[in-house]
């Protein structure tokens, strides 16, 4: 039929248009970052350094070929940078080679005995150990509030945790971090502490707990009523003045904490209420796996979530950022069904009206 031919031309042009402004454009705008399935073995760290070294080498060759003014000092600067990177690469390779050699499955009982080194700064609420300081005092002392360790074993990768105890900056892939390395002693002892954290980890953890543990000390989630120092408390305003002093006091505490955090991180980490719609699935996955891969130089540490831990965090972000998803899925078929029936009836009417006209 002629009309179907016309329709197919319209449809083809529309699809081509869609392809160009969506998949094609986005493939050009965002760099491709390889996803390693939440395995923490230093692969992306080494690749990034290799990439940087390659780029500097190219720049040096280019400089040598260009032969401009003060070229010698420029080359010397670049070569200095190159040597620093090479040293860093060797160091990174060595670190992860050692980590990859640590046998899995430490001794939880021995780890428990060694936990004193941790609880000087961290709380473990599930074991009756409260945090030594409140978030504001902790942020004043360290820049950021050290996390409670109750859920750490349930969310983070075992190898990552061992690496983190050995050297937090290597594991987190950042230049500086409040926690010093080597507190756990040797690699075996670190493995024991990690085994202990795994042994006390709860079997089930809610999406919100996952978010709070992994993200919530740096990122607020205002749609989830979460601040970096805890849930927004329910308070009452004075009925005569309309003022809510308790809420104001809480806000002051949050502002104080945020100020310290911003100093520590360089800027205030963004609120994650609706990040699920602001970033693609692919970006979030690769970013959480290694923040440096998407935002080179970011102060955000790699947190070492396992696949399951990541999925829990994402489901919380969906709850706050895209809460209509279940309703969409429930309502969609009814609306589409209505228009299918509508179209069938309309087709009947159309055929009856045009009968005998042609």
């Amino acid at each position, binding site marked *: 039929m002629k009309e179907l031919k016309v329709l197919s031309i319209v449809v083809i042009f529309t699809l081509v248009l869609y392809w160009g402004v969506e998949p094609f454009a986005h493939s050009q705008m965002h760099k491709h970052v390889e996803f390693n399935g939440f395995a923490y073995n230093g692969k992306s760290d080494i690749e990034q350094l290799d990439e940087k070294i390659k780029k500097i080498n190219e720049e040096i060759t280019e400089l040598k070929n260009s032969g401009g003014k003060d070229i010698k000092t420029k080359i010397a600067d670049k070569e200095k940078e190159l040597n620093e990177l090479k040293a860093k690469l060797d160091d990174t390779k060595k670190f992860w080679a050692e980590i990859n050699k640590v046998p899995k499955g430490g001794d939880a009982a021995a780890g428990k005995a060694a936990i004193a080194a941790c609880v000087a700064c961290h709380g473990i609420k599930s074991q009756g150990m409260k945090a030594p300081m409140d978030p504001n005092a902790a942020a004043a002392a360290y820049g950021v509030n050290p996390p409670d360790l109750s859920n750490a074993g349930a969310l983070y990768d075992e190898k990552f945790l061992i690496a983190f105890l050995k050297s937090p900056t290597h594991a987190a892939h950042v230049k500086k971090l409040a926690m010093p390395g080597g507190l756990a002693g040797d690699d075996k002892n670190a493995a024991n502490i990690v085994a202990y954290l795994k042994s006390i980890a709860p079997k089930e953890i809610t999406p919100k707990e996952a978010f709070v543990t992994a993200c919530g000390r740096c990122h607020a989630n205002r749609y989830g009523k979460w601040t970096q120092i805890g849930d927004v408390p329910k308070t009452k305003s004075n009925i005569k003045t309309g003022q809510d002093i308790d809420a104001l006091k809480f806000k002051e505490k949050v502002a104080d904490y945020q100020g310290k955090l911003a100093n520590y991180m360089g800027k205030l980490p963004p609120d994650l209420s609706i990040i699920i719609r602001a970033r693609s699935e692919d970006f979030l996955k690769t970013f959480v796996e290694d923040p440096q891969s998407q935002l080179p130089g970011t102060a955000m540490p790699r947190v070492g979530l396992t696949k399951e831990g990541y999925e829990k965090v994402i489901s919380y972000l969906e709850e706050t950022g895209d809460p209509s998803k279940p309703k969409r899925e429930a309502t969609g078929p009814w609306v589409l069904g209505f228009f299918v029936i509508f179209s069938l009836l309309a087709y009947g009417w159309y055929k009856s*009206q045009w009968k005998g006209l042609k």
Partner: protein
Amino acid sequence: MAHFDENARPFSNKWLDERIGINTLKRVLSTEYWIPKNINFLWAMGMVLAATFGMLLISGIFLLMYYIPDTKQAFDSVNYTIMSQVGYGWLWRHIHGVGASVVFLIIYIHMFTGIYYGSYKRGRELIWLSGMLLFVVFSAEAFSGYMLPWGQMSYWAGMVITNLFSGGSLHANGLVEWIRGDYIPGQAYLGRFFMLHVLLLPLVIIGLIVFHFGTLRLPHVNNKDGEEFDFAAEAEKYKAGNKKESKVIPFNPVFLSKDVFVMGIYFIFFFYLVFYHFEFAMDPVNFDPANGLKTPTHIYPEWYFLWSYEILRPFPTDPGLIAFAFAQVIFFALPFLDRSPNVAPANRRGIFKFWFWALLVDMIILTFMGKVPPVQPWSNIGLVAAVTFIALWILLPIITKLEKKL
């Protein structure tokens, strides 16, 4: 004084006819508004557009109840209040967002249908011109609406587009500040774009839609062959019962029955997008709150403005602005640049056939290049496409003048 029948029951047909001429209205606007029979589903795009505008209006009214035009609250009033606190707020917002995008798809289909079949010529010039006015006001409506969620893309697209009014080397910064009501997009800016979006521009659009329909009534709708015939004579045939031989059908109910069917199919597509594929209409960048201190890596307009944006971008500032201005107004001149006397589908019109497809493909290429980052080879492709666009319009009077009379 006219005669009024004392015994006519209030609101009966006779009563209404004596007062507002209901029978004449019905005849002129509906049962004896004659439409050619020789048409395809593309002739239903006008009604599809009207229906989409209706969806935008209704969803907009619901959104307006909860939207707060305040730079500090706008983002959360949309993304939190409407999306999670208001019953079915998400549905209205997604209808509004998808509708704003799809309405341009249909406008472009409607426009290119008109160009293909020559429906802007010989008595139909005002249909084309009023339609182009609608296109311009719809563009302003879309742009002002895009400011309202006050996300990163609202803010920065607003910054870039209002900057265009500085006129390049003219440095008319005073004009830009006058438009913004501030040095940068801020509260004054949001407030006035809110007013434009929810009141002034919709009023103008409704007025123009009425005018657009009005321009259609006397010249009548074109048909698939561009055939000119005597509507009155054909109508007589139809009324006499020679429905098969008559070349026309009444708008209501015959033409309408097909319109309604096409609309049904269209709404399946529309609501499929609303429920399952709305992301294309809601840019991720706009889910980051506006931040005047942080420029997004990529700033680009919505897809329907990309082709004209790409006519601006590949050139240096001043020529770019001139090319951009050219692209904005040149479609208005179409009925006067097309010098051929033929009203016929493009495929029967010699070189014009190639001109039509070249324009369409060129605009699609411009659209693609308008979104990707300005790096090679895309910048060069964009430049060539932009020059081609201008060349095509300069060539139009020449090639249509050479066209043989059919």
